[in-house]
């Protein structure tokens, strides 16, 4: 499988995402330059963390206008799999590929620490290899991860089971104390209604090797690879569907 990792000026987790896909997952990873509309035949696209275009304005506000995002939007509308991590999530919100917006963290400070997130849905390309209710440990590192949307949108997210990850305690309890940034309903990650575009604030690529403290995040990349392998072979996809 071929993963495209977008490089915006200011992306700084692009290398880390590529490392996990190529050296841990054993799949192909290729960088996609922000000024190109060519996705180089990628089967899935990752928007990595960082500070695209410096993020001196609102996070992701400039990145959404870059040429590569036109291609990513087309790819997503055609059912292509797109994952935004941290800054990538913020960009997907700005681009309108995911609903809602980011506020500054409650407490108004950058926070970098390991958190726990509970897998809420497993019928998506990003979570199909995980168990429902499984708690993953992965770090966050952001200034603006306080997810917000209006009541109607939240109701829609709940109804259509678009909330993929929630901040919880290590044993999976949804408590305010487990929420590192004040996000609405402890939301750590969501997908679109079509379930092919997702974003999350924690960094799974920083939690994909035991020596770094946690390998829990790898399940997200593994899910994507398995999903792609399944859809590439329609016959087995049906028999293995969950």
């Amino acid at each position, binding site marked *: 499988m071929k993963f495209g990792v977008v490089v915006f*000026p*200011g992306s*700084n*987790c692009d*290398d*880390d995402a590529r*490392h*996990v896909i190529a*050296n841990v997952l054993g799949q192909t990873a290729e960088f996609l330059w922000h000024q190109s509309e060519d996705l180089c035949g990628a089967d899935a696209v990752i928007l990595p*963390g*960082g*500070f695209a*275009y*410096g*993020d*001196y304005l609102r996070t992701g506000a400039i990145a959404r206008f870059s040429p590569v995002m036109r291609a990513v939007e087309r790819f997503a509308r055609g059912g292509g799999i797109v994952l935004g991590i941290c800054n990538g999530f913020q960009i997907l919100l700005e681009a309108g590929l995911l609903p809602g917006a980011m506020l500054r963290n409650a*407490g108004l*400070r*950058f*926070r*970098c*620490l390991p958190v726990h997130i509970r897998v809420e849905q497993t019928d998506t390309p990003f979570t199909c290899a995980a168990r429902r209710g499984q708690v993953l440990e992965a*770090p966050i*590192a952001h*200034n603006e991860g306080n997810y917000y949307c209006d009541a109607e949108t939240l109701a829609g997210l709940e109804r259509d089971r678009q909330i993929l990850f929630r901040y919880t305690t290590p044993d999976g309890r949804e408590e305010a104390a487990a929420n590192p940034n004040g996000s609405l309903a402890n939301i750590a990650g969501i997908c679109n209604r079509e379930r092919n575009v997702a974003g999350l604030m924690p*960094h799974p*690529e*920083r939690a994909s*090797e035991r*020596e*770094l403290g946690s390998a829990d995040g790898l399940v997200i990349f593994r899910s994507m690879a398995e999903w792609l392998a399944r859809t590439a072979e329609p016959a087995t996809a049906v028999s293995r569907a969950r």
Partner: protein
Amino acid sequence: MLDTEIKVTAEVAAEHGLTPEEYARVVKILGREPNITELGIFSLMWSEHCSYKSSRVHLRRLPTKAPQVVQGPGENAGVVDIGEGLCAAFKIESHNHPSYVEPFQGAATGVGGILRDVFTMGARPIAVLDELRFGPVTSAPGAAGASKEFTARNRRILDGVVTGIGFYGNCFGVPTVGGDVAFAPCYSGNPLVNALALGIARRDELFFARARGAGNPVLYVGAKTGRDGIHGASLLASAEFTEESQQKRPNVQVGDPFLEKLLLEACLEAMRTGAIVAIQDMGAAGLTSSSCEMASRGCVGIELDLDRVPQRETGMTPYEIMLSESQERMLIVAERGREHEVIEVFAKWGLDAVEVGRVTPDGMMRVVWQERTAAEIPAKALAEDAPVYQRPLAPPAAPRGGGKLIEFAPEGTDLTANFARLLAWPGIASKRWIFEQYDHMVRTNTLAWPGAADAAVLRMKGTHRGLALTVDGNGRWCWLAPREGAKAAVAEGARNVACAGARPWAATNCLNFGNPEKLEVMWEFSECVDGIAEACIALGIPITGGNVSFYNDTLGQSIYPTPVLGVLGLLEDASRAVGIAFREEGDAILLLDSAGEGARPAGADARREFSSSEYAFALYGVAGGAPPIVDLAAEKRLIEALLVLSGEKLLRSAHDISDGGLGVTLAECCFASRGLSARVSLSSFEPPEAAVFGERGARAVVSCSREALARLGGVARQWGIAALAIGEVGRDDFHVSVNGRAVIQAPCDRLRAAWADALPSIMGK
């Protein structure tokens, strides 16, 4: 009137910080009176900050040679070989005065500057550490005399500095993996912000700042030049602070980490084209130092056409352009005929790369502006013939620390309450509030993040190797006894790195001192250099570079002499890294004591030694006596033993004894663990307080499985080290007894809360 027309007189020279003798030297070098631009250039290059004129004669005593040293002092950063064709480039630098005047931008641009020094060498930065000193942020006893107004201001400075460091490093994409923070009244008007950056390069892909090849083009890349930072090095960093110093705010530069990130990627990519001959960042003294130093090192000249320099503001004079310290700029010498390859890479990253001059054979730094020669100075004389001062020095008339000494609590006193207060003292308390604001994981190499091991530990992808890195210094000890204090800083750094499982490999230093024109300050400096040299030689650690920061005085009051050591360690197998956290209930806790019983002072000497401790300072406001004598041979034995033990994977944890003594060391091993505690009983001839909170070196606390005990004892004996089984890892209660009587007894969670909640509650979450 344009400032090019200002007539240079002795008074104008004095306003630029040049003494009459220095001005005479300028006239002699030029064979004529300088014009105002030339005067500005000289004043910058001959400032204390750039020329090291007061420190040079002393710095020669530092050991800088060793087989692993690829590049010693004199380049943008020191470089050491770390095996498998790789090199580590690293350096520490101060940004003290800017961080007082404008904490956020001062600290941010301090980080930016040191990062450029590292990637200029062709090395990708993989870690930053920060050594920080502030005035008291609470009115606890250790902050004796600190008024509310002072502590509030110090908190604002701490907040601004931490936010600034995070702002720059987080956006740039380098993990801030460690550091050291301490508090004392002398830093109230003069905080210290020392930033260390570490980068990795292939040995055959290093770059140097030596211009060559007459006719080769000189390219200017990065941000445009503005009026910011003019006189940053000469006036802000090379003079004492007065009440007017706040007016120097416009002299502090403004940082743009996003631009620096682009500059990093563009520089590394442009270096791979093979079209770059030499490269240097424009840090302190901007275009002036980068051009004349590159020319001087390569024994050539450089001619600059200032009309081609990208400018952010209109109407800038040659004086302003040459003296600007605008950030995120680089100067590159490219190979003639291939400059377009470099320019194309920079264009790809959206950056200006403009040909602003050329290399000349005549050794002159020539500056042309509006088709007139605005400055013409022999580059070598400018860069290397700065005056060198053997400044007079003298020890203080009365030895320090002769004042108040601490009274030991009577035998049998319960020390639990004191221990809880010590744990909540900002110098000892958890620094999570600080390091959570730094991205310490980006680039996914961080094996031990802040507080998890005695040193930050980073892996090197594609190899099994790892690097350990720490920064250490104890200003109070150096004030009491400069030579011993400096030795202790080296010893602690080396011990920290060894506890983490790495062999001490090289060091960089940042020497923060007061006004060198004061006899005592110069004496402190000389003593500290001797202490560092002695310790580095004894422990086999070369110094590969660093930075001197003088004039850390406010209203005539000097800071503690604060030499800071950044020690780099090498792990051949990163999987052998050791953390500080206790791991298993029932594991044995051992005290490795290399100097042994004989090193313990008795009677009045014990009181004197204990009066220099963090405990005495934090709880009683006492900064007296004399620090423990450093036994370098014992330190060396301890380091070797630790390396054998971690190499054989016998250690479950290792943590050296430093600030707060054995008690704090044990507590930190518990707090870093998943809910474990310690039960320890000591036998000692010392008063209980000294046994638990004394800070004598050459000691570490380790834990191991019961099965490993015998082998561990054997290794210790082989290295002549006492390995005392003092207790075991438990749960719930933290318990320490001395000679059979309990001195500390409390639920570990309660102690942890005191330690963890202190900074957040002081800083308001």
